[in-house]
């Protein structure tokens, strides 16, 4: 099986600033590498306002049935001011080579309610109904201060742009 040096979730540059991340609201977004890739360093394109201090926690989840289960995680405390650029995380909780297929990133931004932080990526279309098929992403309706070990997709909001937009994800070995 081939080994990738990197995985990028979009085939081109996206520059839309997504909605400001709500403090403690966990979003799940898909990541589907075509071959194996080391879960080593994750880069996000982000935007931050003045004196933004926040903790970015990333969980790597697999989906079985309708249950997301955590397999790995990264976390970093960050201070940025009037920033628009790449934010990098490493230091995974355990070394892991991701197998090909669909994985799910849980994105948790903890700002304490005082910082304006947003991901840059692809905003989702905003139809009037909830996404009716199998799970392709969503966000928690309650706030949390930690990545859950598991989560039921049925408890996630899967309606509209804010719940379903996907940030730019760059994973490098």
């Amino acid at each position, binding site marked *: 099986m081939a080994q990738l040096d990197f995985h990028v979730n979009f085939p081109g540059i*996206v520059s839309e600033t997504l909605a400001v991340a709500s403090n403690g609201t966990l979003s799940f977004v898909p990541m589907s590498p075509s071959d194996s890739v080391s879960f080593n360093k994750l880069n996000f394109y982000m935007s931050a306002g003045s004196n933004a201090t926040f903790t970015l926690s990333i969980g790597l989840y697999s989906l079985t049935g309708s249950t997301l289960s955590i397999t790995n995680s990264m976390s970093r405390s960050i201070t940025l001011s009037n920033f628009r650029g790449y934010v990098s995380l490493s230091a995974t909780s355990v070394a892991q080579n991701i*197998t090909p297929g669909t994985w799910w990133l849980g994105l948790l931004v903890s700002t304490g309610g005082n910082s304006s932080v947003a991901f840059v990526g*692809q905003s989702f279309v905003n139809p009037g109904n909830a996404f009716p098929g199998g799970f392709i992403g969503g966000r928690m309706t309650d706030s949390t201060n930690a990545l859950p070990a598991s989560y039921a997709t049925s408890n996630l909001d899967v309606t509209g742009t804010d719940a379903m937009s996907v940030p730019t994800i760059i994973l490098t070995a």
Partner: protein
Amino acid sequence: MNLFNSVKFLGRAIPNVVVAANKGVTAQLQYFENFPLHEGATFVARSNGTLSVHAVNVFLSLSFNYPLVLVSRPNSGGQQTVQFGLYSLNGSTLSLANSASNSISFSNDSSWISMVTSATQNISPGPWYFALNLLSSQTSNLSMYANTSINAGNAVPGGFLMGRMTASTNGMPASIATSDLDITGSDATRQPYVIITA
């Protein structure tokens, strides 16, 4: 090799969680979308019963459970039918491998439409051809969320990538000769946004 390791988060072990580092299973997508970038994509009116086909490369196996499209309607009420065909290409003949459809009346201006497949299938990696057809009981045409399309002065050269039928149809043909498809201009080559989920 030990495939299962304890997971730690913020330095603390998370109980009852294991790492499936090399799960040893056939690589499988849990969903597929034909174009992840939506820049320039918008709702575009479709002629009633005009079937279009476009090529996709499905890069890993995928369960053909729920094909979905985004549809908007110009007026409230009426019955809307969306038909989806999964075709393979051999030479210059597209052959129907599977299909899905749904007939609904929706009240929103735009809605996700999830279709019901006619048979279970695990789509193998490789090139496939998505066909879409809309039928509306309303006098005005439905619109589908579709990507932007350049309006080249000549037909798409080379092997078949995308096109549409010139005659209307109310169902998915068992086979289509690519030579019968219009492959010139933005209307003929625009690709509707399609998601297939497991």
